[in-house]
């Protein structure tokens, strides 16, 4: 990867995939905005270690995201890359899902990506180019028997990414990374057990660094747009 000396935003970067992505992008020469919602101290540590900057934002809040993007552009320079990664994982049976839980899941995953895109696109257009990556999930492709709200939100994110790839071409590329089971704080303990891991063709969980590498790759792949990058140890083969 070249050393672009441009700014990148990674939402939800205080831990897990977001953190690994921020670290990798910084190593590749980006000035990285590390966003967090609740874990300020962790985000500060990530930002300090990579020479980036931490910003508090709830990605579900459109005005907050707009303000974030304005601050990042002013602090770190033109935004070349935006990675919509912030998210939460919840399990509940259909009958037990509250209206608020459904709403919150959509507002964070789908709304977070929509808000970030709306805010960065005019700036990227101004500079004539840009790259956007949405972090979805393998579960969006295969479903889950216990996380319909999460799956619906992540599948919607794929539809959004495919539409925006068509709409924003040729100046801005939009790609989707759909990770399988990755060893991060979001992974349920059940999925760390042998019983589950032995069903994964590559026989292990993924690492946050491996997903970060996929994100960095699609972010820079100049002829790739609208693609769903399925990195999951072979859990989804179709």
């Amino acid at each position: 990867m070249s050393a672009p000396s441009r700014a990148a935003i990674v939402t939800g970067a205080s831990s897990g995939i977001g953190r690994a992505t921020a670290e990798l992008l910084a190593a590749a020469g980006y000035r990285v905005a590390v966003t967090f919602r609740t874990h300020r101290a962790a985000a500060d540590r990530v930002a300090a270690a990579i020479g980036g900057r931490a910003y508090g934002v709830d990605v579900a809040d459109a005005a907050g995201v707009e303000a974030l993007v304005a601050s990042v552009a002013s602090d770190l320079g033109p935004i070349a890359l935006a990675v919509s990664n912030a998210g939460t994982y919840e399990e509940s049976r259909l009958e037990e899902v509250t209206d608020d839980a459904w709403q919150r899941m959509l507002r964070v995953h789908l709304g977070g990506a929509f808000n970030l895109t709306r805010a960065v696109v005019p700036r990227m257009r101004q500079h004539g180019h840009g790259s956007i990556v949405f972090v979805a999930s393998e579960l969006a492709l295969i479903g889950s028997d216990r996380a319909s709200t999460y799956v619906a939100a992540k599948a919607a994110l794929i539809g959004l990414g495919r539409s925006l790839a068509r709409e924003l071409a040729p100046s801005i590329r939009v790609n989707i990374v759909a990770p399988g089971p990755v060893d991060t704080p979001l992974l349920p303990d059940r999925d760390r057990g042998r019983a589950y891991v032995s069903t994964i063709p590559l026989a292990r969980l993924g690492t946050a660094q491996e997903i970060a590498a996929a994100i960095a790759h699609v972010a820079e792949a100049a002829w790739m747009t609208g693609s769903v990058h399925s990195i999951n140890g072979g859990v989804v083969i179709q």
Partner: protein
Amino acid sequence: MSPDAQAIGRVALVTGSAGGLGRAICARLRRAGWTVAAATHRDGPLAADLAEPEQARALVGLVVESHGRLDLLVANHAAMTMAAVEDHPPDDWWRVVDTNLSGSFHLAQAAVPHLRRARGAIVFVTSEWGAIGWPGASAYAASKAGLIGLTRALARELAPDIRVNAVAPGVVDTPQLDVDAAAAGVSLAEIRDRYAAASPLGRIGQPVEIAATIAFLASNDASYYTGQVFHPNGGTTTAS
């Protein structure tokens, strides 16, 4: 077509029944022997704004109260807007997602106890655009793609009691074409020709063709299908 013995006495709730596709779905299911509760957005006894969870629940409650059971949910209602992402008013954007995706979710949630009892089925009407995306239709495509995820999740979660499948039609001959033509600034004939040219079958679809796919998925002939997305689209997405 003669009535299907397994459909006699069984009750289907069809949303979006005032539209071109909705009317065809209701007619097809009735011919197959189903008792159809035809819900609409505005007028009639089963009018409901499905962006509102309470109204979705009330609609299901009303149908079960009237007919004593519910065997099939066809979530066919949809809201649609076209706008560039950076100019899209957030309220309109969410109105589309909340109607199409959340409305379907809340209907399913309310219907599940009844469908379990009946060993019934759900058919979500999604869209080709949900599968492949469309410029200027970010809200609609996101909502319809979300519906595909919801189909796959609920198929797993509700098995083996309830089968859950989706239909993703390509361009269909409905009044929506007038809207598309106006948006593109061309005549109705021109927009028809454009869509037809994009299809290997050389034409757009007819509502009865989509309704037939839905009726199949609802029937016992489809008893081993769950979590699947059917694509009646004239072959437009065969390359993707």
